[in-house]
């Protein structure tokens, strides 16, 4: 406990840096996966092809990637941009499939109905298909968020500041409390961001809650049906 109290400012500083490095990849992988998910479902051949290609990104080991990226894009070895890009690639690897699955899960009857109303393809995608894919997108981005927040620590091996520094430093100097602090704070951030995403989901998809209350009981439903007419 002493160690934490004495190093609180440093832990706080690293926490902020950790967030600054891990939040952009989460947002970016969500945004980038939207067109990929759309394209995957657009043509018969594209789904298997695109999703396999992007899933393979996940097979690239992270440490070598941190070395290769600077060479490819001309950043410094210790630039946190490398981590942001690498983690975005991993995020897309997971999220592209979720997005494709989510868009595919939208009831074809609803799409047909939207077309019959006079939605153009573009409007229908943004106003109907993407929102209705929401629950699957949310499930996907929650996995991406937790995995990204955890993976961000790897950058510490190269000296890129994040809570991972507590691991490398703790190992080198044999301070167990420092390592434990790192683990606990990373988990805490992951839980916090996850809870935040669930809240955002609730706000953006109020009809989901309506659905949940609608299925509270058969009796309730029957009563409503009787009252219907």
């Amino acid at each position, binding site marked *: 406990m002493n160690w934490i109290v004495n190093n609180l400012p440093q832990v706080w500083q690293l926490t902020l840096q950790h967030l600054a490095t891990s939040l952009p990849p989460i947002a970016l992988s969500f945004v980038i996966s939207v067109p990929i998910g759309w394209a995957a479902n657009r043509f018969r051949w594209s789904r298997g092809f695109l999703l396999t290609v992007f899933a393979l990104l996940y097979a690239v080991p992270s440490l070598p990637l941190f070395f290769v990226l600077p060479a490819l894009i001309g950043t410094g070895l210790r630039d946190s941009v490398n981590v942001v890009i690498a983690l975005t690639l991993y995020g897309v690897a997971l999220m592209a499939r979720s997005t494709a699955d989510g868009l595919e899960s939208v009831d074809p009857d609803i799409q047909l109905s939207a077309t019959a109303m006079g939605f*153009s393809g573009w409007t229908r995608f943004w106003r109907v298909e993407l929102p209705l894919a929401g629950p699957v997108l949310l499930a996907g981005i929650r996995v991406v968020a937790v995995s990204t927040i955890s993976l961000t620590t790897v950058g510490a091996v190269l000296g890129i500041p994040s809570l991972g520094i507590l691991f490398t430093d703790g190992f080198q100097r044999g301070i167990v409390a420092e390592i434990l602090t790192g683990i606990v704070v990373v988990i805490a951030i992951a839980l916090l961001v996850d809870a935040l995403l669930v809240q955002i989901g609730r706000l953006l998809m109020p009809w989901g809650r309506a659905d949940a209350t609608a299925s509270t009981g058969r009796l309730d439903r029957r009563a409503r049906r009787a*009252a219907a007419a």
Partner: protein
Amino acid sequence: MIEFVNVSKRFPDGTVAVEDFSLVMPSRKTTVLVGSSGSGKTTLLRMINRMVDPSSGRIEIDGEDTSSLEPVALRRRIGYVMQNSGLLPHFKVIDNVATVPVLNGVPRKQAREQALTLLDTVGLDRSLADRYPSQLSGGQQQRVGVARGLAANPNILLMDEPFGAVDPIVRAELQVELIRLQRELDKTVVFVTHDIDEAFLLGDQVVILETGGRVAQVGSPTEILSDPANDFVANFIGAEKGKRALSIRKTPRGEILVDTEGRAAGVLVPGPDGSPA
């Protein structure tokens, strides 16, 4: 007026849904397309708003060839009501009804006000406006579907088995409601069903379809019932059996009508024009 001229539809997999179909659907009347599955009735309906394009032939609305019209714009001026309501689950009832006006550029506030009036028109309480479709009963959802179909005040209303998924009691109510609405609003309604009773109840003009969109008979319910064109039609409308085949049985107190099972179906009285029964 909607006119089909020698319309055929072959799907890419080779099935012929409709072959050489010609028909005039008069303005401000209800035309019912009735047939079993595979009769091409839904395909015919969807060709009117270009959800399906014909392989050959043409469809005219008030003399205008629909193939020359932009599909999205065309759909926005034709009401569409489908089975299972087809409501957007993530839009509140009020926004579902306001969908098409909003797409047409009507300010949202104004569209919502109009939508409230439409809820009245279809007999729904305004308190349902802020609910989501999943919080409504099947019958209520279907009414919202009708309100949405009417929202842009279209001349044409397409209805694809709109009451097919609700229970018989609610269906009967919705049918009566539609007859009332049609009396008030005077739309050109094209209604698709596989239920011949529904067709006779709602249709000014009933089109009985065989497989491949072949027209077995076109006429008013009275014309079809009194003079079925062939065995297929007679069989389809059940003219020789069940509750349509009524016979007169004399009783001491007057004449009653009985069905083929011998059950009483009604009493014989003089016709409304005073002619003897």
